[in-house]
């Protein structure tokens, strides 16, 4: 089976992290985002993954070769030279997707959840129509595209983009499965799948929804990245609790790479991810944070709701909070206070940032 992952462009919403590394390769809970998705697809029988990119990255190509080897599958790149919207990339990859006439998966690269690819395939076979969209329930639907559908069959009535009044609390989760016949609906030009393709398919009774069980998050920006991390760690606790770190000094769900070192008298968690080779010195308090590979957090510091970028160094007695994001190789000097600071790579910070701002 095949899958198309809509990777897109520069990943600007996840800067400064995406200034160092293409978005699919940003580590989410100690594994590149892309890999969470690809591994789940492989488990459901996918042997060919096509990445639809609008920005070519050497790093991405190298990583693709590595994963092809490792997972024993084929990974292709479909490169759009001009913007094709959310449906156009499917037309671009038409030749790859049409082969052997099987349904294919499509997903947004920013989405994290308990990927239900096997169930989705089954559900899709059962109703036998052209397409199935996964929907998920959210608290604030008007931030997204809302789907109105028949509860028992899943047959879609209509879509409403960012509704002003409450219509439904189910939104498009960015995960689909289509029959190849659907490709003839899309021309090779900038096309919006939500606005131009889906409504027609829904009208013809060819589009159904499957409701997602469990957590879902679009981790395309730092605030949501951290929220998604909390959800994922909670899901780990339910399905694979042995992967979480417990013991004195660890509270709640904490994921620690085996090569990381944690000092004495620290309190880590809840909801913390510590990457490979990270050093956390004595007396540190971390909660609701991601610390990327090779970073160092020096003694007696206090971090809440932060992302510490690869190889960064946080000084002693530093306080960081409120979605402070450090890019790659940032140095924060001792005794500073960072509140909502967004720090670009290779920067040295020697002044406190008491109110949220971007540090270039």
């Amino acid at each position: 089976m095949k899958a198309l992952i809509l990777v897109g462009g520069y990943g600007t919403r996840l800067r400064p992290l995406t200034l160092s590394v293409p978005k699919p390769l940003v580590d989410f809970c100690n594994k590149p985002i892309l890999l969470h998705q690809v591994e789940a697809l492989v488990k459901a029988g996918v042997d060919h993954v096509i990445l639809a990119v609008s920005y070519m990255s050497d790093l991405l190509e190298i990583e693709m070769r590595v994963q092809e080897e490792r997972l024993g599958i084929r990974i292709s790149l479909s490169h759009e030279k001009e913007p094709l919207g959310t449906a156009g990339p499917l037309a671009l990859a038409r030749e790859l997707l049409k082969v052997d006439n099987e349904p294919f998966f499509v997903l947004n690269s920013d989405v994290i959840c308990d990927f239900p690819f096997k169930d989705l395939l089954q559900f899709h076979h059962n109703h036998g129509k052209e397409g199935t969209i996964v929907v998920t329930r959210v608290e604030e639907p008007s931030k997204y595209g809302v789907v109105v559908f028949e509860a028992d069959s899943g047959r879609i009535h209509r879509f409403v983009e960012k509704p002003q009044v409450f219509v439904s609390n189910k939104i498009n989760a960015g995960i689909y499965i289509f029959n190849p016949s659907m490709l003839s609906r899309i021309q090779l030009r900038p096309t919006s799948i939500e606005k131009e393709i889906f409504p027609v398919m829904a009208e013809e009774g060819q589009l159904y929804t499957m409701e997602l069980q469990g957590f879902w998050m679009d981790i395309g920006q730092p605030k949501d990245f951290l929220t998604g991390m909390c959800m994922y760690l909670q899901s780990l606790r339910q399905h694979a609790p042995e992967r979480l770190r417990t013991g004195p000094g660890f509270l709640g769900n904490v994921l620690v790479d085996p090569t990381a070192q944690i000092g004495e008298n620290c309190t880590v968690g809840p909801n913390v991810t510590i990457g490979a080779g990270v050093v956390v010195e004595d007396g540190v308090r971390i909660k609701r944070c991601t610390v990327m590979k090779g970073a160092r957090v020096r003694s007696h510091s206090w971090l809440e709701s932060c992302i510490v970028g690869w190889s960064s160094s946080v000084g002693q007695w530093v306080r960081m909070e409120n979605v402070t994001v450090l890019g790659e190789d940032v140095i924060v000097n001792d005794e500073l206070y960072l509140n909502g600071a967004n720090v670009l790579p290779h920067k040295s910070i020697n002044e406190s940032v008491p109110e949220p701002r971007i540090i270039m």
Partner: protein
Amino acid sequence: MLKAVILIGGPQKGTRFRPLSFEVPKPLFPVAGVPMLQHHIEACAKVPNMKEILLIGFYQPNEELTRFLFNAQQEFKISIRYLQEYAALGTGGGIYHFRDQIVSGSPEAFFVLNADVCSAFPLAEMLSFQKEHGEPNSLVILGTTANRKQSMNYGCIVENEETHEVLHYVEKPSTFVSDIINCGIYLFTPDIFQHIGAVFQKNQQDMLLEEPTNGWHRAEAIRLEQDIFTALAAQGKLYVYKTLSFWSQIKSAGSAIYASRLYLNQYHTTHPERLASNKEGGPKISGKIYLNCVLGPNVSIGTGVTIGAGVRVRESVILHGATLQDHCCVLNSIVGWDSTIGKWARVEGTPSDPNPNDPFAKIDSETLFREGKLTPSITILGCNVTIPSEVIILNSIVLPHKDLNRSFKNQIIL
């Protein structure tokens, strides 16, 4: 023989020192580990022939003051008495009212010092200067140099550069007059009382022309600066001795930290025993202190303070009985008596230090609010305040006996 008079003010004065002045009269607030007044008394006691120190103010007799006087007399072996004004009589009215006490024993001269200044107190030098300049019995004002802009916040002195006579004096002018400012430390002779007496008579006469209510108080309220110095300038009686040694006003809590630093620097030569050996600037550290702490520069720690593991304190004063729990960080703050700071908490203020690149810059006496917002300054925790773990208290003032339950920034917490 010589005497010294220290003007200590009263509760209506020094309100910028709240909430710390709720617990202790401002002149007794610890600066560099000892009560503010002690630095004055020490300097006076060192002058040869100093026979008596008189404190003049309008504080009601209170336990702290009485205890302080008792201890000071024991330590410095000199007579120290408190003369309480019946009302606020001004910088001149108080000494005039008690002139008999001051001149009893016929001192040749007497110093007058304001309590709320921090200084190296070059008193012996002022004495030598007085003998060498002007007629016998000239009056000397200690002066120092300020930058042009800040000089207008002080008493400004225009001097004759050769004779050092004061040609002109004006208190807090609104336009630039001189960059030599009045340090609030004077050397007078009993002649001064003639001049003050003249002003008093004049006030009384003016009083008769107006309604007789409150007349008695107002006639006696005399300000040395506006009423005496201004009149005496250019009459061959008033001289200025300029000093390059350190000097600062102590009007607000923020300036207390700056003054602390000035005195602590002086301790290297005058009182090295007051400095902690392996940490900078901390007298009398008692209670438990773990090895992973970093204390200093410019830190004063009171008695009975408990400091946990991994604590960082910089540019701050920790008053008696306070507790700082593990990993907390205290920067540019004053932590009140018996307060508690929780684990990993951050208590931080903004220093209002003068520009270090300008040798004549003085500490700013900023207003509390500017454009409707609290001016960022030293964080002050009043006595018995509890700060919970893991919060940040930034640029805030917390009144005594308050238990906080969250972070605060740029606020006064009642």
